[in-house]
């Protein structure tokens, strides 16, 4: 039997919610615990998004369930400061979403240019 590797296809991926996208982006560079995630997301979004703990942990729970992130043991942190990191699947989903957004941006800009040229 011949196995064919599944190619990332941005057009077939389901759009992510903003908190999920920002969490994945934040974890793309390094593992972080809850408060560090919250602060980094605020920075990533230029202060526009501040996740509450309810939203943050709801999203983390779903991401753990989907195995897009995993808990990560850090020796220097207590149990109350559990760190999270991206799994291979989480990184792949982030790449798909960023590709989808890139294509969408390209189409949006093209449409804007077209309307500007016509007016």
């Amino acid at each position, binding site marked *: 039997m011949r196995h064919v590797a599944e190619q990332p296809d941005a057009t077939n991926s389901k759009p992510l919610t903003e908190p999920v996208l920002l969490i994945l982006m934040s974890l793309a560079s390094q593992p972080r615990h809850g408060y560090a995630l919250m602060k980094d997301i605020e920075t990533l979004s230029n202060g526009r998004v501040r996740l509450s*703990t309810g939203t943050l*942990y709801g999203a983390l729970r779903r991401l753990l369930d989907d195995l897009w992130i995993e808990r990560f043991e850090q020796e220097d942190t207590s149990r109350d400061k559990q760190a999270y990191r991206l799994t291979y699947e989480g990184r792949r989903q982030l790449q798909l979403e960023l590709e989808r957004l890139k294509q969408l941006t390209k189409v949006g800009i093209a449409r804007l240019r077209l309307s500007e040229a016509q007016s």
Partner: protein
Amino acid sequence: MTTFTYRAVLRLYPPDHRIWFGAEMQSVFEEAALEHRGRGSIAYARFLLAEYAALAGGAAIAWAAKLAGRAYVHQPQPATQTALLPGEVQEAQDRLNVSLNGLLHAISHHEFLKARVYAAEEQKAREDLRLLREKYNIAE
């Protein structure tokens, strides 16, 4: 007072969510509250309102997910057997039960990736429990 209120609203969540995330959520809330307290009373009040509202909303979503069978963790064993244990031992026992249930559930549904995650959690929970039993001199 704010931590007390937070803890009270947190009780709206399903028990398994509180076991897995309760301590972490409270710790993050306390850090964020400390930061917002320094930004003035209006900013602090706005922060608290947003936190409590999102917490109540999050609890509703967590219950909906649980009832739909999409819960990450599964219902721990009834606490009757462990009711007389010290708080942290009881919590460690609950974590072990949750991991074990998750492991069995994952295996029975042929979700082997999940099973590996639960197996690692179960191993850690078992070790935590062993150390706590040693600390309190509690027999197996």
